[in-house]
């Protein structure tokens, strides 16, 4: 039996216009793929932060982020 090993890593895109920096993806990701980053010059307190995929090579394709994102801002391999 030839066992195929799972290969971590994915192409992750975040729609900056949709992301409100709610931090849900940061909290739910077991591999710490996401981090919040301050939007420079943003004056709206509800849009002060945005999520950034800082370690997409660690993504294990569990899709928790897609499931929890209330704004449908995250795309993995172009899909939601």
């Amino acid at each position, binding site marked *: *039996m*030839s*066992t*195929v*090993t*799972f*290969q*971590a890593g994915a192409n992750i895109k975040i729609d900056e216009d949709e992301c409100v920096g709610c931090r849900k993806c940061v*909290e*739910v*990701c*077991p*591999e710490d793929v996401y981090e919040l980053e301050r939007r420079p010059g943003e004056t709206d307190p509800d849009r002060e932060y945005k999520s950034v995929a800082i370690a997409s090579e660690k993504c*294990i*394709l*569990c*899709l*928790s982020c*897609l*499931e*929890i994102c209330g704004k449908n801002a995250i795309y*993995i*391999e*172009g*899909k*939601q």
Partner: protein
Amino acid sequence: MAGPLLKEQLVSVKHDWKDLSGKLVEKLELKHEPVGVYLVPSVHSERYEKFFESISRPSGKLTYCQAVETVRGSTNYSGLSNFPDALRLEAEDFLCSAGAANLGLYDLPDAIKNGERDFLLRRFYSIEASMVTRDKIPHFEPGSVSSVVVFKLSKAPVDPHIILIFGLPAQILSLEGPYVMRNGGRIQADLLGTCGLCAEMTVSPILNRRMNISTLCGGARAHAFKDPTEMGVGIPAQEFPNLVEDLLNRQNIPKRQDLPKELQ
């Protein structure tokens, strides 16, 4: 010792799946026809894969439920220009690692296997509860399956292992009685609302050798099955012809002379 299957054994289709599918769709007025699933075993996979090489693989990653949704003709997630009637998925084609692992293509990533992922997403009370729950999700041995072929049942290129039927609760209800008519008994559902299409509708009916009912799962509903009124059943394909026959027979009103003599 059993050797590789002959090509004739692989390709000989034993049932008229198009006819059976059409009868079921017509009788239950299903919106979409059933989907057949064939799991290519890793043992002698090269022989099987030659047979399935004409079936397209998706042009990008997609989840198992998206593949099923695609071949049944609802939404095309395959990245191919036309709606494919069949898709062949290898390990690297899967967008959802849990689905691929449940289906036996590889082992679960550690953070899912040890319960951490579900603990964080589902808010389990403890990581132990999360781990036990994950461990109980029906799954095949890692590496036991080399690829998965999903297809419209009416276009079955081979006898499927499992047939997936989707419908409204009332349509699924119509299958329950006919399913137990032949041998009697009850239907015991093996479900949790996690890994609905892969574990509950595909793996569980194979491991338990009986039809299983699923309310699908959060992932399937988020990524593919957007109609919240739909649910599904997975049935071992060898039971499907009898199910259709019994469903159609049910409309015949029983006659007193059909009863055993002592009850007439």
